[in-house]
């Protein structure tokens, strides 16, 4: 598929629903299993992977595993995992599952999404 890419300024959605009282998962607790769903080797896919890699190396060194799933090669997994937007990062482990969409260029959001940082700790961008 030919995907057209345009730079659009991502806006932070007002209604972020990360519960404030949810305990953040400590990095040392368990193994981290991360699925990154992408379509082909698009610039967004590459950016997302690189961004994720940096964060994981920083926060979860030696405790994480990134599975990159190319939906072009494996369309069934889009169906199975209810993927609509790409790139989507799914935290398979530790449970519960959490999803982050986008090219992961907003580092703070990724940390919150992964549960490595609580909402209150967000620095205003």
């Amino acid at each position, binding site marked *: 598929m030919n995907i057209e890419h345009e730079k659009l300024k991502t*806006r932070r959605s007002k209604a972020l629903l990360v519960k404030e009282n949810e305990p953040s998962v400590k990095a040392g607790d368990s193994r981290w299993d991360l699925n990154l769903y992408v379509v082909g080797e*698009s610039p967004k896919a590459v950016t997302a992977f690189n961004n994720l890699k940096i964060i994981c190396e920083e926060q979860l060194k030696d405790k994480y595993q990134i599975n990159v799933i190319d939906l072009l090669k494996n369309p069934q997994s889009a*169906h199975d995992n209810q993927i609509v*937007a790409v790139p989507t990062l799914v935290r398979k482990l530790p449970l519960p599952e959490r999803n982050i969409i986008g090219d992961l260029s907003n580092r703070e959001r990724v940390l919150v999404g992964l549960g490595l940082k609580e909402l209150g700790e967000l620095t205003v961008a």
Partner: protein
Amino acid sequence: MKKKEAPSHRNVLPKSPTSIQGLDEITGGGLPKGRPTLICGGAGCGKTLFAMEFLVRGATLYNEPGVFISFEETEKELTANVASLGFDLDKLVKRKKIWLEHIHIERNELEQSGEYDLEGLFIRIHSAIEKIDAKRVVLDTMEILFSELPNPQILRKELHRLFQWLKKRGVTTIVTAERGEGALTREGLEEYVSDCVILLDHRVIDQSSIRRLRIVKYRGSSHGTNEYPFLIDEDGFSVLPVTSLGLNHISSPERISTGLPRLDTMLSGKGYFRGSTVLVSGTAGTGKTSIAAQFVEAACKRGERVLFFTFEESSNQIVRNMRSIGIDLEPWVNKGLLQFHATRPTLYGLETHLSTSIKLVNKFRPSIVILDPINAFVLGENQTEVNIMLVRLVDFLKMRRVTAFFTSLTSGNDTMESTDVYISSLIDTWLLVRDLEIGGERNRGLYVLKSRGMAHSNQIREFRLTNNGIELLDVYVGSEGVLTGSARLSQETKDEAEQLLRQQEIGSKQFKLERKRDALAAQIVVLRSEFEAEASDALKVIGIEKAINERFTLDKIKMSKSRRGDASTKISYASNGNGRKK
């Protein structure tokens, strides 16, 4: 009908037939083929069913498999919901005719970081299409994405791209969207889907719910622009486009008996035209239903099917009442030739009545439809709506060459003709049953007010309900004016007596004349015999006189001989003279 061509455009836009009853007529063949169509409307207006029927019909009738992308209901829910319409989705899915794909996003578990796109959705649609080689796609309320995914700007851009992509793929797509405040859709999807927009509406008027459909736009094609009522029931969707049909039905020269030989005679000897519209109007109790029943009986005897809509009596009551005038309808009901449908007009709205009627006609395929009475629908000020409904019904029936028989109750105060004047133009044969009040009694008179295309009688007939059905009699038309009932009877007896008297007089006059002739003849005989008697007497006398005369002469000669006189010469002269004269 389904394959009806769009009004002649040189380059007719290719269309994808929906096979939704009526919709293909108003769209001139269906939805734009290979392009997206937007179906919008409020909650519960039938968007999902519309879309699903489009897919199912495409898969079953046109061998165009379809993909249903549902953003709200799961595959199981969908299957269960449309099972009520008789669609067996499980079977269609197994046969690879339909593919159901439920797309679910849980916003609670979602974080956004940086730009994203909807390639995942694209891939899912793409692979679903590939799986069954789909030609039709439905995206059922995709604007849910707006509430579940962050960043509407990205979404808009992506949706725009999605529609372009679907168009490029050449699949006929239906996109459903919730109606927004002051706009067609809440998220302005009509900006992206600009080829065809259909608006569904569900409103309640006078406590009856009415569903309407309107084609807001249809790029590159002419279409019906009215609001059309539609119906969702156990057979799915049906739109009533009948007003768009125009007057191009084929008229049949075939005639069918009215069931009343005398009435047939009044209609130039053969009865109604097949496929024509007959109206019988009259005041209460004038026997309108009986005329209908007589027609029904005649039709059933010919083996034709009759659909009888009754709005005032139950079917039982009609059967019972008609039995009292010697028409037994029950055997025909049992044989399945006659079907009654008794409903109160107030039960549902006019459109529902109309569409139910149309559906029943389509199902039962009768050759005659009776509506008894049509003005039961007129409640208050809705005469116009009723007329529109009747026009639609009549057009529909004419298209199918079904003979329509309506009765209409006219109120006593009005001039008969004026109460039904609104529908007059629809009616081909119009019979009027009216009360004739003469001599302190009420009798029924029937006449043909109009009958298109045939030389019909201009006579009023007296109309009587007897134990053996309806009887039509000549009314008395004479020096005393039009008489009916006992007035007619007494007038007829009077006439008969007078005639008898006259005949007797003629008889006696003739008798007298005969006698005179006889008398004359007798006189002639007497006179002749008298004359003959006289004549014979006279001859006798003549003979005697002659004899005497001869004797006298001889005597004279003898005497002269004896006298030897010279007078002998004179006497011989005299006797010679006599002899010479002889």
